[in-house]
């Protein structure tokens, strides 16, 4: 379920005036997309719930400032990303990776791994740390550039590239390990 929901402009207008029913309609329409996105990036149901409620509170308090109702989907998605990033930042997981070098991966090789029948994105996301996960999600899944990712999460563009390359390294390791049968939420770098 994506953020590309069909909503009524009347509902948005009513919500902007504080209409509770309209706000509830918006919640019902977007609760799953918001929760899903938060969960995929945090891999933690409890914190994804917190993000959901925070996003909805922000929506209720700032929807009156939204000038163009056509941009509601993108606006709410941006709030969700920012809230997730704030959550990760609160745990101090978004520090620069310093002068670590970028892992040199083969795009063809990685593509080949993803094409395998036993490829499991959930498994892959589980082994990444939060910083890697959000970079992979923004850059690879949502189509941000490294520059945009860097701006969103407050690291340098080079850092964004390094983080992504490390995620690719994990992907390669995961695919190469025949014993792998699922790891615990958080992954090896989660507490680093």
């Amino acid at each position, binding site marked *: *379920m994506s953020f590309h929901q069909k909503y009524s402009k009347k509902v948005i207008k009513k919500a902007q*005036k*504080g209409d*509770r029913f309209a*706000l*509830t309609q918006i*919640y019902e329409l977007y*609760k*799953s997309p918001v*929760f*899903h996105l938060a*969960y*995929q990036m945090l891999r933690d149901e409890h914190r*994804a*719930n917190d993000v*959901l*409620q925070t996003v*909805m*509170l922000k929506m*209720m*308090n700032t929807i*009156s400032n939204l000038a163009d109702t056509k941009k509601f989907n993108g606006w709410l998605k941006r709030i969700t990303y920012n809230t997730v990033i704030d959550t990760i930042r609160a745990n101090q997981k978004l520090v620069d990776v310093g002068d670590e070098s*970028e892992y*040199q*991966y083969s*795009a*063809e090789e*990685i*593509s080949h791994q*993803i*094409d395998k029948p036993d*490829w499991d*994105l*959930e498994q892959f996301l589980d082994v990444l740390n939060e910083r890697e996960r959000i970079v*992979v*999600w923004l*850059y*690879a*899944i949502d*189509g941000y550039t490294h520059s945009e990712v860097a701006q969103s999460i407050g690291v340098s563009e080079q850092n964004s590239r390094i983080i*992504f*390359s490390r995620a*690719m390294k994990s992907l390669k390791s995961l695919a190469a390990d025949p014993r792998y049968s699922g790891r615990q939420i958080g992954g090896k770098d989660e507490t680093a």
Partner: protein
Amino acid sequence: MKQHNDQAIRAKLSRSADALEQKHPSSKQDLIFQDNLEKLPSTQGKIEQRKMLKWVVAAGIILSVGLTTVYVGNPLQKEASPEKGLPQLIASSNQLEKQIAIYDELTLNANQYAEYIGLRLELEQIDQQLNYYYSSAEGELNSEVNRLWERRVDVAKSLKSIYQNDTLVARI
């Protein structure tokens, strides 16, 4: 540093993401949302009230000015009138008479003509009173003379308006 061509990786990861099982929040979250929603009016309501209060105050001011203008007349004009001395009033009256003179009373309909006669009689009465004051040379009644000329100007304006209404009707 080598720049990777990630297009294929991004496309494949994006497709994988689309195929992920949809995660849904628990129904308990709906209750939490409703609780948060209940707390909302305390802030949102105040904003609306403030906006409403501003509009009510603005509307009240506009209404007061409008009603004052309609029933009392423009306060700015009222303040200007005391500065109008006798010479100005006489000049205004003569100017109005010149303007009225170009009209032909035979163009008026019965009702307008009756009104015309009434106003003309009133003007004659005012003129007689003025003549009386001027012939008696009672200087202390200067304020009364001023009032009569003001009255004359008003009646002459009413007279002029009869013709102007007639012209307007004819144009339509």
